[in-house]
């Protein structure tokens, strides 16, 4: 049996799955102590089920998102090695930032060496300022990590107790500023996250759950919980990823659909294209800080069932804030949920209170409660449909760098709108009607996120880059740099080398049984020509374990070998 738990902003949801059937669900309010909410939900669904039957537990949590939002961490000092390019004034962060000399170019060649005196000075200044956490990040460090490693080793030599993060290990994609942010946030959250992970593992252990525990990542893949300590920020936005996977599991395989997850304060939008959730082209943005974290393309719209509704002059306005529960549930202000109650689209709360809320808004304008309610619902539906349109436009604007990519760009418009989350039924049919689509409210829509967590599967990636002219290759995820001895090294050999590393990585994480089919997600081979003669090849290869989900719910379809 499989367990999925999603610790969300307002609610913590859990499900127990057995062979694609939902055996138990739970929904409890999320309290400040995330762990206690998690365990409460877990205890509800586990009632009557022996712990030995649990094969796997997958969590998704707002833990890291909350940490970053509330800035509940020690300051992180920065040592940056940007070299030429943008003016160094661009690299201003809300912390002490020391910029030192040293240049690595796009092929990983050292152009300017580090200056040891500058390295020492930067470290000393951070020490004087009281920093104990440092992120060291260089431009093109994934092509050559010598500079980053050297600075880190000097720090370790001087201050063995400091926590040091190096850029290429955290964020190996091209984009230096995002690498800085990713490294800084990793450094900031790591110890608190470690504490959280250990507490969860201990608590599960006490309940007799000895099986493997995973955590969901923003891209919809999972990592063993213990391993995730290395990359805490990969777990941001796992909530929206969870609901998207949940929808993937709840609709027929291969379907194309828009996912609308309407919660209390926000509505998350995502796309499933031919059965696969769409990945964002760029890394996730956390409170205006751009990271390199790979994430599903999810758009959060600040409107939900608990959004405050007010009257301004003759206008009725839906605000993005939440000031508590809906009026009909004893809250202070009218909300869209009250409107739904008046229209009979939900059974939540007290009908008289809901009417009263509509009267508060409508009386001064001489409008009847039903009309007020209709207008509020209309506003919410309009906001969401506009955002769905914007999402399509952004998706179509995604740059293409190859002829075939431009040619295959088609204007795919999903025909299905799938609503999940507590407030979905009241809105989704109208959203779909306006977009000319079919509305779908799947069974278990209330706990689709927990289902998504339960059916998610481990994903591991390996990005290999080989430069045969220089006779070197690197494995981004491992920060490994090796040499190529084989004179006839080519694309085929690069691919098997990448697969080898993927297998090695799976073993390292205890996932060898999950390796299964390997997907090649990127393969770029460039002939390097110098003086009209081919002098070498640049080979970029990305391989990953198969993306997807373990089960489709209620269909009896089992998608993997297990």
């Amino acid at each position: 049996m499989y367990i999925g738990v999603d610790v969300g902003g307002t609610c913590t949801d859990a499900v127990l799955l057995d062979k694609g059937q939902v055996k138990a669900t739970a929904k409890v309010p999320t309290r400040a102590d995330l762990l206690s909410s998690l365990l409460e939900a877990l205890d509800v669904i586990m009632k009557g089920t022996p712990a030995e039957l649990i094969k796997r537990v997958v969590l998704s949590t707002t833990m890291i998102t909350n940490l970053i939002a509330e800035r509940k961490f020690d300051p992180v000092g920065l040592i940056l090695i940007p070299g030429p390019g943008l003016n160094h004034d661009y690299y201003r962060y809300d912390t002490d930032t020391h910029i030192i000399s040293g240049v690595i170019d796009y092929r990983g060649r050292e152009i300017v060496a580090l200056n040891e005196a500058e390295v020492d000075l930067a470290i000393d200044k951070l020490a004087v300022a009281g920093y104990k956490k440092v992120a060291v990040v260089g431009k093109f460090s994934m092509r050559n990590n010598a500079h980053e490693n050297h600075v880190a080793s000097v720090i370790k030599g001087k201050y063995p107790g400091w926590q040091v993060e190096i850029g290429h290990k955290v964020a190996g994609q091209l984009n230096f500023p995002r690498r800085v942010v990713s490294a800084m946030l990793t450094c900031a959250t790591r110890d608190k996250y470690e504490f959280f992970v250990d507490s969860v593992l201990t608590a599960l252990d006490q309940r007799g759950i000895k099986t493997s525990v995973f955590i969901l990542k923003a891209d919809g893949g999972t990592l063993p919980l213990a391993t995730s300590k290395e990359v805490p920020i990969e777990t941001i936005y796992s909530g929206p990823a969870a609901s998207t996977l949940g929808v993937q599991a709840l609709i027929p395989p291969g379907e194309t659909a828009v996912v609308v997850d309407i919660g209390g304060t926000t509505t998350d939008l995502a796309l499933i294209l031919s059965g696969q959730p769409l990945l964002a082209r760029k890394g996730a943005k956390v409170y205006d800080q751009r990271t390199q974290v790979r994430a599903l393309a999810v758009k959060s719209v600040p409107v939900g069932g608990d959004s405050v509704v007010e009257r301004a002059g003759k206008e009725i306005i839906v605000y993005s804030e939440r000031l508590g529960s809906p009026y009909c549930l004893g809250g202070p202000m009218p909300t869209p949920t009250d409107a739904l109650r008046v229209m009979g689209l939900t059974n939540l709360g007290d009908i008289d209170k809901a009417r009263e809320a509509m009267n508060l808004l409508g009386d001064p304008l001489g409008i009847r409660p039903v009309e007020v309610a209709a207008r509020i619902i209309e506003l919410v539906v309009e906001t969401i449909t506009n955002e769905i349109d914007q999402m399509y436009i952004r998706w179509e604007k995604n740059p293409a760098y190859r002829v075939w990519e431009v040619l295959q760009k088609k204007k795919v418009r999903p025909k299905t709108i799938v609503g999940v989350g507590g407030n979905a039924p009241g809105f989704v049919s109208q959203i779909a009607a306006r977009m000319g689509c079919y509305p779908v409210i799947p069974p278990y829509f209330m706990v689709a996120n927990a289902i998504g967590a339960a059916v998610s599967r481990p994903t591991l990636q390996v990005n290999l880059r080989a430069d045969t002219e220089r006779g070197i290759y690197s494995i981004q995820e491992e920060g490994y740099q090796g040499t190529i001895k084989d004179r006839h090294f080519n694309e085929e050999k690069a691919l098997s080398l990448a697969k080898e590393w993927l297998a090695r990585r799976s073993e390292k994480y205890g996932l060898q049984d999950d390796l299964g089919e390997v997907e090649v997600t990127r393969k770029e081979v460039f002939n390097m020509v110098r003086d009209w003669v081919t002098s070498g090849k640049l080979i970029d290869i990305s391989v990953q374990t198969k993306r997807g989900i373990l089960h489709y719910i209620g269909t009896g379809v089992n998608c993997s070998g297990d």
Partner: protein
Amino acid sequence: MGIKKTGLIFFPAFDWAISPTHPEREERLLYTRDQIFEEGVVDLPEIEEFSPRLATIHDIARTHFCIPRVQSQVTEAHLIASGAAMLLGDRIVSGELNNGFAMVRPPGHHAMRVVHGNRGFCNINNEAIMVEYLRRKHGIKKLAIVDSDVHHGDGTQEIFYHDPDVLFISFHQDGRTIFPGTGFTHELGGPNAYAKTINIPLPPGTTDETFHYVLDHLIMPILNDFKPDFLINSAGQDNHYTDPLGSMLFTAQGYADFTRKLNPHMAVLEGGYAIETALPYLNLAILMALAGQDYSYVREPDYRPGMFKERPEKVEQVHKMVESLLDVWAKKDEFDREKLFGSGKFYQRKKNIYYDTDYIEEEQLEKVRQCDQCPGYMIIESGANRGYGALIRVLAVSIPFTACPDCQTEAYEVYEQGKIEKKQFDYIYMQDKSTDTYLAYERNKDQEWVSEGPKPEV
């Protein structure tokens, strides 16, 4: 209202090459991609990246006579490169973007009006296609193109040689020392567009200093006088000191300063084949200059200040040329038309055009109507030998956007007559920009086509 952005279309055509070892190959913008992506400049609020779209066959026919048909001269990569420039042009004209950079390949500035094949790595002219599109779609009146490639932009020059509304300025390495061997100061445009073509041949070894002297004292004053509604930079980057094909000594900073001063609406990438030592830095610096960002930290790895010196006599030569071209510009409306172009109904010139990439030799007779009412229609007779004996002969008629009724009527007569009487021509073309109609007649099949398919029987 947000800030007005710089639009970027980066289309490196990672799956298109002329041949595997050709300078115009997949690898060309690879390191540029690495540099631009690693800098993270696309995340800056001042820069927005777009996906390219395809130009249509119709858009190509508005500018070129492709022999025998557009489809036989262009690949999808060409349509994407041209389409990218058009897309950014649209958004700049509409006011959505402040300016734009089409960082695209394949390049285009050697492609002339008649296209028998590939010359100078170019099949179709991205800038010219954009210019004609902007005039047609948005009614833009006056445009200027400044070509900063080391090679003379002979294709662009040829297309607009008789067009008084498009000012073409090219500075480049002296044609006596480099392909295509043209671009001398006496090439100044046809009778109806005199001094709307300005060529500034610079001696090999010219540095940033002289380059900027020319910019400040010649190019900018002329542009300020002409006042184009839309300004384009054909942003070739092979004047760089590390370029393998050129012999000039410009730097990334020199190019970026140029971009900042010129302040074009659009930059369109042309040549530049120092793919490792120049392109990553130049493209980054130009993009940042367009976006109004500080590019002073962009440096080539081996650059040291003061590493280039010019011979004073060469500098003196350039200064004199600037003087004389300024004089030409000042007196552009006083030239003796009869003395320069004769008094015949048509001004005509004979041209021999060599297609270096495809080894084609073309002989062309170009006639332009010396009209008082409009820029005059053109008749082109062209024959090209593809090396294996088959000589293809074509007759092409082109009507300008602002043609007078007489020229329109006469031009159609020439076209219709050609179909019936001029049996020596295998193909006959009509490019009527005034009504956006493009016709092609194939003698063998006795069939006429409009740009997008066969013309329905009447």
